[in-house]
């Protein structure tokens, strides 16, 4: 063991630390809620012979798990302000978006939630850090479908897809999550957009676009659709898809005249060479 070669702790100190190895187990209620959030169903049989859990690598299962997880995580809503600090837009923007938009948009998404890493860089750093990958001309839809997902947003003129429910029916185990209602949806939207922004901050425009696509599928009429549209322009620029970014920016201006996100969209376009 290498630790003995390196500033070994006093034996008594080591014992004291080792005594912390075990602690109280996770409360039963928490375990049950986590099972529900992870779509694992009931308790595992004591003999270990019970049904297999969610198949690994099964995208549908993962998505379902994340769906419930998103609702579960929504109670904390810890990220509402983080992304705004990154983009330089104040909390007033969120409030403004909330009241000004209401249900609108024709975009599509899913509720997969991923915890974004901390956001510590500003928007300009994000843009300069983005890899200048210039892909072949693609349609708006195919741009995000590159990872097997639906388009970030449906064409502006198309109606919302009726085949994609705005809220995915959850199993009984996640019924509690569903009770959270509209506030949870907003928090879930916020988390997803935060996750997208975090990916963009990290220079991972592909993941950012993927998460924006998820948001679009999950919240086609989300209250944060306007912000998503603005972020999408950012993401496309970061991905080097300048033509698409310009088209999206034009559509954004038409659809959201006077938007508080307009400066952000304009700033995104300014970095296009």
């Amino acid at each position, binding site marked *: 063991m290498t630790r003995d070669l390196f500033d070994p702790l*006093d034996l008594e100190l080591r014992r004291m630390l080792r005594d912390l190895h075990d602690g109280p187990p996770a409360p039963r209620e928490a375990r049950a809620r986590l099972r529900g959030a992870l779509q694992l169903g009931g308790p595992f049989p004591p003999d270990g012979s019970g049904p297999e859990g969610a198949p690994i690598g099964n995208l549908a299962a993962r998505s379902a798990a994340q769906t419930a997880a998103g609702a579960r995580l929504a109670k904390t809503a810890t990220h509402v302000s983080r992304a705004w600090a990154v983009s330089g837009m104040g909390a007033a923007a969120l409030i403004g978006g909330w009241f000004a938009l209401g249900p609108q948009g024709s975009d599509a998404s899913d509720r997969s939630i991923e915890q974004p890493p901390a956001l510590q860089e500003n928007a300009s750093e994000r843009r300069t850090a983005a890899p200048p990958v210039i892909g072949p001309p693609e349609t708006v839809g195919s741009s995000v479908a590159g990872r097997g997902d639906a388009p970030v947003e449906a064409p502006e003129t198309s109606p919302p897809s009726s085949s994609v429910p705005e809220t995915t029916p959850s199993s009984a185990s996640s019924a509690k999550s569903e009770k959270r209602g509209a506030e949870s949806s907003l928090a879930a939207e916020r988390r997803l957009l935060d996750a997208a922004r975090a990916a963009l901050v990290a220079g991972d425009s592909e993941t950012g676009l993927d998460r924006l696509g998820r948001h679009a599928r999950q919240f086609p009429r989300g209250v944060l659709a306007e912000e998503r549209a603005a972020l999408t322009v950012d993401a496309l620029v970061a991905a080097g898809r300048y033509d698409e970014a310009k088209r999206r920016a034009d559509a954004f201006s038409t659809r959201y005249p006077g938007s508080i996100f307009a400066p952000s969209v304009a700033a995104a376009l300014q970095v296009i060479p």
Partner: protein
Amino acid sequence: MYPERTASAGPARTPSFREVFEAELDFVWNCLRRLGIPERDLEDEALEVFLRVQGALGEYDATRSIRPWIAGFAYRVACEYRRRPRHRYERMGTEIDAPASSVSPEQSAADGEERAMVLAALERVDSLRRSVLVLHDIYGYTIPEVAANCDIPLNTAYSRLRLARAEFAQALGRLGWRNEP
């Protein structure tokens, strides 16, 4: 629990996510607690850990112990938790574990006092350094394991351990602990 631990022959298989969850929730729970996540947020952060584990389980090398691998996720989640502005200047969790029911009240009181002191000293250690201390000196993982699973350079891990131990010992001293023979 896991197939690779019970099977006497044959290649180890990756456990199902459900198996991992059922077997490791308590470990994750306490690991996060030791890494400084307050009780009120343990559930959310544990969920985050398992979401990541679920997503990455296909990459897990079943021939190796799973706990150091999972501890890496817990470490990253704890780090990200600490970086959130609202938690950055917050003191880490100080909740004292409930004593085991099998010990006498006197011993329980003594143990509880010592445990409280150790936890208090632990929380005074820088969070990044403490993570290495927790994974190494509490959970017993080797520094190379810690470095590999937490994606930190080996020398950095050693350095953090050294500094964390010094901070921990100093903090204990300030709290009045004396190592009497």
